[in-house]
């Protein structure tokens, strides 16, 4: 049934190594950038620009989309849902720096997202710092944490690295749940100090501003990852992902390359945590759980590891599905099914988890890989 040659015949190319022609694309574009006609470059960027414009315009769109969104597109509920989707999309993109780009199977990425989120709320409330300083503190401390944790965890590779990062994230989760000195709020989480942030980010009516903030974070993460992938460091990461031994022979300091990936990914993740706290009005202990890290992995693989669109689409779709699949539990057709089936299907995570297994089997390059195969148009990358 499984001949050793099945990696040739089958579609099961490891998603970490098959990541894409994106490496090739990057290699082609980096040196040859100047020679390419300006018009074509603009043309290639066009879909992204149009998409961005449409997204930015959504808060002005008073359209009902029955079944898709809870209310009008620009209603606060919809805006909040979309903002959450965008933030998580950006966080998934930050995780892809480790998993999709560098081939690091980290189970501890939630740690840095949670660090950004909690350090922001704690800086604002407990330490009474002004917002800009609080953001700075959150980012600096989270990045320093990434340096320490990454420095230790990268002493082992592969599966052991996954276990060790998981353990560190779990430690953070325990600390947050124990609520030392009352700073993390335990199971309740820590609400955002509303007086410490600009009025524009607070209140139901200002949901569009939080939406734009989330969009801005996503764009920033996108730009940073794009620049990183095209840089020398990005090429080194791709080399490590493809074949660590060979990368070492070629003279890349693989430890430093991997540490860089951890630090950059964690920085973006922490920024995502900061924005998450601002958008959702506080820090939630769910961010620290291993379940959240695993869901990041699921998002990236669902969308397509090593593709910028893949991670973002995976993150957005997952968050959307997680929120909207709850509706399924109220659906009428479920009532005709046996109780047990209905109870199981009412769990979004059951559907997402099962769907994920199916994707790993039948579309190992993710939804974007699947779409890419159907469309085969490199311009939409």
């Amino acid at each position, binding site marked *: *049934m*499984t001949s*050793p040659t*099945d*990696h040739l015949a089958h579609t*099961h190319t*490891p*998603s*970490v190594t098959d990541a894409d022609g994106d490496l090739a694309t990057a290699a082609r574009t980096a040196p040859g950038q100047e020679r390419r006609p300006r018009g074509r470059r603009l043309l290639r960027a066009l879909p992204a620009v149009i998409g961005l414009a449409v997204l930015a315009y959504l808060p002005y769109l008073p359209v009902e989309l029955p079944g898709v969104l809870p209310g009008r597109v620009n209603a606060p509920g919809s805006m909040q849902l979309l903002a959450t989707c965008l933030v998580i999309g950006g966080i998934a993109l930050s995780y892809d720096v480790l998993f999709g780009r560098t081939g690091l*199977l980290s189970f501890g990425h939630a740690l840095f997202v949670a660090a950004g989120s909690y350090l922001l709320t704690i800086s604002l409330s407990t330490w009474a710092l002004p917002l800009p300083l609080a953001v700075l503190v959150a980012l600096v401390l989270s990045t320093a944490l990434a340096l320490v944790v990454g420095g*230790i*965890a990268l*002493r*082992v*590779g*592969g*599966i*052991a690295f*996954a*276990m*060790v990062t*998981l*353990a*560190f994230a*779990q*430690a953070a989760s*325990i*600390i947050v749940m*124990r609520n030392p000195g009352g700073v993390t709020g335990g199971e309740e989480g820590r609400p955002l100090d509303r007086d410490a942030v600009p009025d524009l980010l607070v209140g139901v009516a200002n949901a569009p501003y939080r939406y734009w903030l989330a969009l801005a974070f996503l764009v920033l993460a996108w730009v940073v990852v794009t620049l990183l992938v095209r840089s020398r460091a990005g090429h080194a990461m791709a080399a490590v992902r493809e074949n660590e031994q060979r990368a070492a022979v070629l003279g890349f300091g693989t430890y430093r390359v991997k540490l860089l990936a951890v630090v950059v990914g964690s920085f973006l993740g922490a920024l995502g945590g900061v924005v998450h706290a601002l958008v959702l009005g506080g820090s939630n202990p769910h961010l620290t759980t*291993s*379940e959240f890290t*695993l*869901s990041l*992995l*699921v998002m990236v*693989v669902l969308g397509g590891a090593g593709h910028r669109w893949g991670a973002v689409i995976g993150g957005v779709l997952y968050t959307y599905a997680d929120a909207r699949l709850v509706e399924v539990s109220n659906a009428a057709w479920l009532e005709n099914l046996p109780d*047990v089936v209905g*109870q*199981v*299907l*009412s*769990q*979004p*995570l*059951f559907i*997402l*988890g*099962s769907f*994920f*297994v199916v994707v*790993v*089997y039948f579309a*190992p390059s993710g939804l974007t890989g699947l779409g890419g195969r159907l469309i085969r148009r490199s311009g939409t990358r």
Partner: protein
Amino acid sequence: MSDLVLLLVTGVGLGALYFIAASGLSLIYGLMGVLNFAHGVFMTAGAYAAWLTMGALPGTWPMAGRLVIGVLVAVAVGAVVGLVVEVLLIRPLYRHHIQQVLVTVGLSLAGVAAAQGIWGADPRSVDKPAWMSGTTELLGARLPNDRFVYLLVALGLFAGLLALLHLTRLGLVIRAGVENRTMVEALGIDVHRTFTVVFALGGAAAGLAGVLHSQYAGAVSPAQGGSLLIFAFIVVVIGGMGSLTGTAVAAVVVGLVQQLANYYAASGVGDLSVVLLLALVLLLRPTSLKGATA
């Protein structure tokens, strides 16, 4: 003095639970290179299977008898689940380790969600034999009886696995496969059949761990397996990724460190000190963690 005795016994008892949870994981990782995230779901499956069985048996039966039958059912369910997962999901992805991990991640998410859907997210209390809830006085300390049960079961499992590894043909193939599974295949041995057996064995151990953990906690809940799994991971890493003896030693050390730190420092510090221990081990001897012999 009596405090210390109490801490040592409870620590070793906890370590025994960790060993039972980690042994299957370690065996599977050592032989197949598969990090089995679904191990937590296997444990949860065992715990619920025992809970349902004990509830279904007539209440007039002695509690201990119902528990024994519950344990047997949990072990059988764990083994069957492990077998099915290996044959249906793991085997087709042979040599694609990352995808194998991803599939088990998907299973763990879906499995916990399914349990939550059927039985609810809240813990359900389990019956415990009166004797296991009691204590025994020893060296001035009142020691909870259930810890002795965990310890005995763990010792039995350890001895059984060692005997399997060193006295049987299957064990010889497993030990060779842990060292170099490609070469086992290159000697004409069908290593895939061994994989299936080991996965079923790991599942059985997970089922056992699940039901004992639910006795320890006094309840079953969907997330229970996942929280035990993390400590099992730590034990496997400290124990040297695939070494059974290493796993046993690491389990006891982790259990003791946790209990001692919880008592002498502060409640909750125990869990953290375990992670610290892991970091320390990684810093001091990273090379010993790249895989070892049984």
